[in-house]
Each structure stands twice: as C-alpha cells, then as structure tokens.
C-alpha cells in the first residue's frame, strides 16, 4: 500500500494505540495536520506548545501509556522544550513529533528552520531527524518502544516536510531491532543472594519507594515485599501513591519537605532498600551525613543511577517488578516491632507540631484546604500541582491510596505544569475527579489553557492558592536571606473574572466558612471550574531541611501559642 509520509504518521499512531494528540499546527507540519482529518485520533488544539507537552505528560502519568504531542518547526518546537525537559527529568514516556523544513533546505537557515534535534539532544532519551518518507514507520515504531521501555523518557521525531508529502510503500515493522539498546530485566542470582543476606541481618530497614515503582507497575510486589519483611516504606515526591498512605507501614514523604519521622527513620536505618529512585539532592540532604549507618541495596533500571550519588552495597540493575518477583520468594518473614515502635514515637512527637492540629484562627492555610479537598473527594481524585509551596503542602496532605493519581513536576520543578497536566490527565481518566492545585505565580504561566479546557469540556477543578507571593521563593528569602524580599511580591489579576472571561465558572474564597460550600460547588459544576483561595500570605512549608544541611537537621513549625 503506497501512502504519503503524513498518512504513515497517523497509520503508525493508530497502531500504537494512540487515542489523543496534543498539538499545534504550522507551516512545517501542515501535511500531517491535513492527513489527520482521515484518522480516528482526537486532536487537542492547545494554546501554547508548552501546554501541549505538559498535557501529553499528564496523560502519560495518569494512563501509564505513552503521551503524544506535536508542534511545527522553529518556534513551535522550541516552545516544547520546557515540557520535554520536564518529562525527561521525571522519566515520563512522551513522543514528540515536530515538523521540520524540507531536507534539501536543512542547514540553510530557511524560514522557521531551527536545529531541533540539536537543541533537544540532552533533554530527550533519544531523538530522530527523518528526511525521507520511508523512514517514518520504522522511526515511529522505534520511538514508542524506546520511550516506554527501560527507564522511560521523552523521544522526539523531527520530520522534514518533504518526507511528509512524498509517498512510499507503507510497511509497519513487526518488531523493533536495536543492536545496542537492550534494557536489563533480571538481576543476577548471586547479587540477589547478597541482598537477601543484608535483609536477614537488618534490624532497622527502610524501603525508599520512588517513581520507578509506578513506572514498572510494581506496586503489588512492593506491598508483598514490605508486608512479608515488615519494612516501613518512605516515599519520594514522585513515589507517592505507589504504596497506600493509610497502610500501617507507610511513612509518607521523605526529603527536604518530608516528614520528621520519615527522615529520622532514614538517618537511623541500618538498611536502605532503594526501589526505583535516584537519591536526588532534594531527598538526601548533604550526602556526607546521609543514612550513615545503613547498608544500601539499590534496585534501579538505569545503570547510570547506580553509585551516582550514593554508593550501593548491593546494586541490582534491572526492572523493579521483575527483580522484586525474583527476590520475594527468597525472603524470610520478620516483624521489626521495636523499630516500628521507635518510628511511631518520632511520629507522635512530630504530629504535635503539625499544622493540621492547629486550632482554627479564621485564616486560610493551604495545608488545611488540601485536607478539605481530600475529604470532599474521598481521597480518590487525580491531583496535579504546579510548583512551589502549594505543591509541597499537597504532597504532604493529599493522602494517596493508589498510583497514577499524583501528577507533579519533581525533577525539573516546572512552574506552569499544573493546569495543562490536569487537562492531559482528564483524557486518560474522564470519569475521575481531577484537581489541579496551583500557586498564583505558576497558574499565570499557562493560564491560557483554561480555554483549551473549555473547548474540550475537560472536567478539571482548579484550586489557585493565592498568597500574592512567589511563595516558595519568599520562604527561602525569609529563612536564608534575612527576609529581604526581592521580586516575590506579586500582583495578581482578578482570577474570577479571568476564568469567567474564558467561560469557566469561578468563585473566590476568602474565609473559612465559605470553603466547604465552594469545594462542593466546584465538584458539582460540570466542566472546568476555578476556585481562588485567598490564603495566608506568609505561611511557610515545614518541616524543612535547608539546602546542603543533613537530612535530620529539619526546621520545624514553631509551636503555636
């Protein structure tokens, strides 16, 4: 069957099971957009390519599938860059398809020619420049395979305009054959035995559950492992939801804004079991004093992460689900009662300082509001966030029981991520309640996607936590720059009017007694809704491990008089 390159693009996407593409057209991808009309894939016209990239990212995280985003050459493609880097830092499988000028024009600075494969080389797992129609099918097949296998990540395909319009025989490759790229699945038995020996000896073990647990769909195995060995589970920011928050072995979040007992457990552990996480500086504090008494077993799919920041006594390179399946039968049962009691003691000491136990003082605190949304939604919503204080409070107080519902930019910390990723997630889970929590700063970075949400009828509830500050930066200035506020005081637009101008129903909430009603109203109102909460302006996220401090050196919330 002879087809045009542009048609081959869609033939391949259909075969990859793609349901929805988030994109923006322009000169260099017009043939692809023309061919699109004949195929059963839904296209979402975004308002800025960055939004499209985050939507594909949110879709991928909520669905566990590969997201797809498109843009034209030049500025279209460069607008994707932040979104690509965001997906890269969090290992999210997204395929980006960009148009490029015709092959014979490459290198000549033609209109809207930008070296997109060059620009995205360090922020993609892999990328391709396609100059001929007969390369398209194989490239797309390969791109999807690379994006989702091994350590997942974004893959970009830059397709020259001539390749889109030329015709060739369409052959969809049955298999992907890559001579070098072969992700390891199993760890060798001798190393598993080494690990089991360490587990046998351990008296104070802790599991560090990272994004890899979700990526490898190993939640079930994690549960079996933890229960069989009675090992408490601490989560990275992106590992939240992989282990039910209400489980008695759950410790909650670790790291810079992690819980006190969690960080203390890590610092006092004699064995760290790191599952699909990479010892980012935000979870370790200074490495010099990190978990000093602990042996470390590191199960990780990417060999380059092993020994990168923290030395692993037993490095198990492989797919987490597979390695855990191999390992669980080799394990004995333990109870670790003393250790668990010790952690509980730390927990109850820390709880006394928790903002959740503060008496009502009529003011709006983000932490409380997150608790309210959690209660109203029965803890079952998909929650996306932007970046800043509200992100940390949401991580701390929206207790997650299941994976693929927590969507936040961890590695890159990309402001502007919240709203578009929620819209993307909606396409993966249209029946589910979805909340996007954003700060007043980050919301304004991609607010234009409100109208995309309206056009698509995306049922997302946006909670803007308006403190009239770039809150997290303000907090750092308060703590570490003697309260010299510099460029953090932010005038905001009338968010209610702004939302309404987009056709989005909206309410402003300024006092405690309006909260429940507003949340209920938002939940009942179909389609996108905006709630603006006028929150306490100078609240700070606690606990906090200052950058470069040891993990147990946490600043804690002052006790309220």
């Amino acid at each position, binding site marked *: 069957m002879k087809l045009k390159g542009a048609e081959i693009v869609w033939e391949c996407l259909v075969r990859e099971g793609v349901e929805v593409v988030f994109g923006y057209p322009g000169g260099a991808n017009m043939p692809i957009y023309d061919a699109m009309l004949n195929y059963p894939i839904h296209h979402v016209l975004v308002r800025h390519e960055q939004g499209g990239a985050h939507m594909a990212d949110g879709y991928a995280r909520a669905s566990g599938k590969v997201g797809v985003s498109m843009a034209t050459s030049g500025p279209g493609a460069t607008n994707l860059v932040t979104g690509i880097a965001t997906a890269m830092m969090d290992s999210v499988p997204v395929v980006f398809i960009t148009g490029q000028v015709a092959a014979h024009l490459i290198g000549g600075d033609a209109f809207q020619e930008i070296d997109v494969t*060059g620009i995205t*080389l360090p922020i993609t797992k892999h990328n391709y420049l396609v100059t001929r129609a007969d390369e398209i099918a194989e490239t797309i097949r390969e791109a999807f395979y690379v994006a989702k296998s091994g350590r997942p990540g974004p893959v970009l395909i830059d397709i020259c305009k001539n390749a889109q319009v030329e015709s060739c025989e369409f052959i969809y490759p049955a298999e992907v054959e890559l001579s*070098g790229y072969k992700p390891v699945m199993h760890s060798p038995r001798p190393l598993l035995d080494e690990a089991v020996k360490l587990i046998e000896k351990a008296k104070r073990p802790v599991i560090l559950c990272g994004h890899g647990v979700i990526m490898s769909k190993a939640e079930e195995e994690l549960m079996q492992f933890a229960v069989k060995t009675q090992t408490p589970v601490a989560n990275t920011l992106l590992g939240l939801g992989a282990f039910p928050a209400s489980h008695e072995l759950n410790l909650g979040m670790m790291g810079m804004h992690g819980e006190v007992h969690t960080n203390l457990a890590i610092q006092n552990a004699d064995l760290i079991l790191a599952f699909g996480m990479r010892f980012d500086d935000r979870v370790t504090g200074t490495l010099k004093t990190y978990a000093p008494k602990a042996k470390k077993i590191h199960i990780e799919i990417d060999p380059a992460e092993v020994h990168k920041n923290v030395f692993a006594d037993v490095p198990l390179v492989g797919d987490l689900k597979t390695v855990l399946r191999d390992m669980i039968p080799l394990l004995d049962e333990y109870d670790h009662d003393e250790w668990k009691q010790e952690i509980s003691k730390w927990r109850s000491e820390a709880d006394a300082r928790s903002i959740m136990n503060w008496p009502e003082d009529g003011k709006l605190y983000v932490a409380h509001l997150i608790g309210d949304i959690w209660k109203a939604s029965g803890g079952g919503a998909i929650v996306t966030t932007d970046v800043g204080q509200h992100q940390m409070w949401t991580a701390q107080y929206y207790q997650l029981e299941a994976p693929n519902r927590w969507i936040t930019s961890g590695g890159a910390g990309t402001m502007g991520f919240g709203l578009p990723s929620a819209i993307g997630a909606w396409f993966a889970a249209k029946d589910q309640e979805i909340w996007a929590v954003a700060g007043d700063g980050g919301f304004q970075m991609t607010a234009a996607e409100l109208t995309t949400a309206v056009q698509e009828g995306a049922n997302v509830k946006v909670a803007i936590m308006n403190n009239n500050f770039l809150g997290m930066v303000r907090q750092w200035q308060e703590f570490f720059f003697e309260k010299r506020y510099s460029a953090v005081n932010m005038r905001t637009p009338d968010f209610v009017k702004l939302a309404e101008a987009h056709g989005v129903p909206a309410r402003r909430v300024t006092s405690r007694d309006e909260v429940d009603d507003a949340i209920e109203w938002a939940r009942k109102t179909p389609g996108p809704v905006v709630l603006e909460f006028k929150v306490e302006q100078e609240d700070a996220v606690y606990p906090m491990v200052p950058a470069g401090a040891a993990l147990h050196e946490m600043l804690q919330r002052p006790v309220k008089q």
Partner: protein
Amino acid sequence: MNYTFIVKVENKPGVLNRVSSLFRRRNFNIESLAVGRTENPDVSRMTIVVDCPNGDVDAHKLEANLYKLVNVIDVQDVTRQPSVTRDLALIKVKVGPERRAEVNGLADIFRAHIVDVAPDSVIVEITGTEDKIEGMIELLRPIGIMEMVRTGQISMTRGALDGVRRMPGTVGSRYDDIMDLAEMMP
C-alpha cells in the same frame, strides 16, 4: 589517570555528536577520540581516551552513561588489557638541505618516514604509541616544527582477550567488577 575505551556504535548520522555531547554534559574530559568504520558497515568504532580522576569509579560512570545512548552497542575498558595502541602524526619540520640528514637519522631511529621533501621543509610521518611520538617531537622541536597533526590514539586488544565491561546485562559483563567497585567508592 587516562583510561582507554573501545566503543562500538551504530553507524548513523549524529552519533559522534551524541557521544561528545554526553561527555560534555557529564563533565568528562576527552584527551583524544578517534572514530572510523569497521569490518561491519553498520558499526563505527571509537577509541576514546578520557581523564578519570577518580579511577574506576569514573570509568563505571562513563560506561553506564554511554549505554544510555540508544546508538551505543558495546563499551570496553581496555586501559589495563594487553592491547596494541597506535597514534599517527604528520610533522612538518623546517629544515633546509644542510640539516636534512639529521632529520633522516632521527626518523630512522624512530622508524618514521620522510613522506614529503620541499626546499626548506620535510614532512615526517610517525606511527606508534603516544610515548614514542612524544619522544620524536621532543627531538624535532629544536630543529623547528612548523606544523603538526595527529590522529589520536586507536587501540585493539591482543588475541582473544576483551576489555572490561562493567555494565550488568551487557555481553560478557562480569558482576564481580561491580563488587570490586564497592571497595573503591568514597
């Protein structure tokens, strides 16, 4: 310390750029990099000499990162393997007829060749190890080097021996290397 790696990559456009970009991104210092075709038209082969201040720890890191590149097929560390190592230099020496014999004599000692003679210069071609070439350069310098070009080191292990592969899952990798590494980490 300098480490030598033999890296086989898919023979595709842009792969050299990916490899060199990776070295930059991960903050490695390339001493030399030579790339060319092999017995297999689909495969290019690189010999990369890299400064690894932390020894095997860096070597491990480098190998692991190379394998992140989809186009990389195989990485061997041949630093401590018996191997044949060659570099080729062309050196243009400023010399008239009166001292030509002297250059000729030096060339003989180093088994180098005079490959071009002009009225006031000659080109010396020398192949060999880094040390040998450096030795020759030292002796030619006082006579007057006008221009020099070098290919960079290429290496091949002797006989059936392979280099060390530290990455689990790759062909012939030895897991005990990972355990050895344990001893060396800071």
